[in-house]
């Protein structure tokens, strides 16, 4: 576990350096293309300033912004005791220094993500649909996957990577647009200006870089985020000792046709399963942020011998038919066997459709802080948080009920 964190930290660092170099090159060449004398330095400075500001924002309120954009609401234990218990179980198993904050997204689409600055300031968000669909062991699998993202420092990596990517895209866009309009307006003047061949070459490099850098950065970002999904699956199994829990959960998630409306292209890589429905595009293409979910399920179900990282690696090789290492070699050092425990994944939660829809709606009302009053006569009253009266007369039996203020 620990070695894995170290390997991940190193990788994050290299990615950070790589993207920074890409950004500085971009700044230098665009600057030089605009002004051949001092533009290069100015370009670098401007790129650094933009990067600094965006990083500050993401460091101090990145997770808050992400949670707000996803329409996630922080909840108390009263709203869903089981979710709280499962998160605490995983906090104990993974030895996190602090309990992650818990958020629920009011959407029937089953999905989940983790975010935060570090393991001390982290948050886990799950949708109401996920909670109404999964049984306890399956929910534990999903929460373990998210806890692994926190433990493996993926949350910080993802935030930084997306900010870097955003900066590179922003600068390239601005430059390309600027080029386009200036060539429309004053093309003749710039072509007649002095500078000769050297300047022309710099201009071509700048344009090529502006087109290629965002593509390159995107591929880098997606490739690593895909790998981290496998890693989080492997870590989740090591935490829960129960691959079928996560496998069964992923199966249910894959089977749902509900769409998560609050997810965007930027937040998509955060989720446990890609929330954006693919439109005919092949799932395993370079552009996809997640490994194909059916492959992940297959790998988990192939783990017959144990719950160790080496067992996951073995299952991965069996399913993919390749020996490509997915777990860093340093993570494969612990040789003690870890047995898989028994569980109840796949069982339970088979209620009639109407009942489960009602449960889902009640949960969403609960998240919206509705107060539930159960009258002795059997009538349920669901009172919104802004209700003005002090008491409610049960229309069925006439009993008086006090409302919570």
């Amino acid at each position: 576990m620990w070695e894995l964190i170290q390997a991940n930290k190193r990788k994050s660092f290299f990615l950070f350096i790589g993207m920074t170099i890409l950004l500085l090159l971009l700044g230098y060449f665009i600057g030089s293309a605009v002004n051949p004398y001092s533009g290069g330095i100015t370009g670098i400075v401007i790129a650094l300033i933009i990067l600094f500001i965006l990083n500050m924002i993401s460091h101090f309120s990145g997770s808050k912004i992400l949670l707000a954009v996803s329409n996630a609401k922080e909840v108390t234990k009263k709203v869903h005791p089981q979710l709280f218990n499962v998160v605490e179980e995983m906090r104990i198993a993974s030895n996190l220094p602090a309990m992650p904050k818990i958020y629920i997204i009011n959407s029937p689409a089953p999905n989940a993500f983790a975010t935060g600055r570090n393991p001390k300031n982290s948050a886990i968000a799950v949708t109401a649909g996920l909670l109404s669909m999964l049984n306890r062991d399956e929910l534990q699998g999903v929460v373990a996957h998210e806890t692994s993202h926190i433990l493996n420092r993926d949350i910080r990596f993802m935030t930084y990577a997306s900010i870097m990517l955003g900066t590179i895209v922003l600068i390239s866009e601005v430059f390309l647009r600027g080029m386009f309009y200036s060539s429309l307006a004053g093309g003749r003047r710039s072509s007649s200006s002095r500078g000769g061949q050297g300047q022309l070459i710099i201009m071509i490099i700048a344009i090529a870089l502006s087109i290629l850098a965002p593509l390159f950065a995107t591929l880098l970002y997606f490739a690593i985020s895909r790998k981290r999904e496998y890693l989080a699956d492997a870590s989740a199994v090591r935490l829960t000792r129960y691959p079928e829990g996560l496998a069964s959960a992923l199966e249910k998630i894959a089977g749902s046709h509900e769409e998560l409306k609050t997810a965007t292209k930027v937040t998509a890589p955060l989720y446990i399963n890609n929330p954006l429905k693919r439109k005919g595009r092949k799932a395993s293409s370079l552009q996809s942020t997640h490994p194909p979910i059916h492959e992940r399920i297959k790998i988990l179900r192939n783990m017959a011998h144990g719950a160790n990282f080496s067992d996951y690696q073995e299952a991965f090789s069996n399913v993919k038919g390749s020996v490509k290492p997915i777990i860093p070699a340093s993570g494969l050092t612990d040789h003690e066997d870890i047995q898989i425990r028994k569980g109840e994944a796949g069982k339970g939660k088979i209620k009639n459709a109407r009942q489960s829809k009602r449960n889902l709606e009640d949960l969403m009302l609960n998240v919206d802080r509705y107060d539930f009053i159960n009258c002795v006569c059997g009538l349920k009253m669901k009172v919104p948080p802004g209700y003005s009266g002090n008491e409610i007369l049960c229309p069925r039996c006439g009993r008086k009920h006090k409302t919570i203020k």
Partner: protein
Amino acid sequence: MIILELHQVEIDYCPDCKGIWLDTGELELLIEDETEKKRLLNSFKKQEHTKEKLYRCPVCNKKMDKVLLDDEGDPVMIDKCKKSHGLWFDKNELYLLLDKSNAGKDNKVLNLLNDMFNYETGTKGEGA
């Protein structure tokens, strides 16, 4: 407005004025008989000038239309959202409508409504 639930049926209800709000489509669910459903849904008639106070839709907060329902017998005047968010029934209006719409004695919905508002209809009397 609060939500009432009995036997897995939910109804939006105002404890102050005893009115009931039905989202679009919910009235259709309440009426079991197909021909009766069609007849009733086609009997909507907008009223331009009435003395009744105009209400605002609880969903979009826009002023609602006054609509006459079931003009063959005693018509019932209810409020309908201009953007079709739903229907507003004053105290007892929904009950009256369902009661006289040939729904019959063993109509489940009517029985449920009777049950749900047992105390209210029992003590405060019908009419209104």
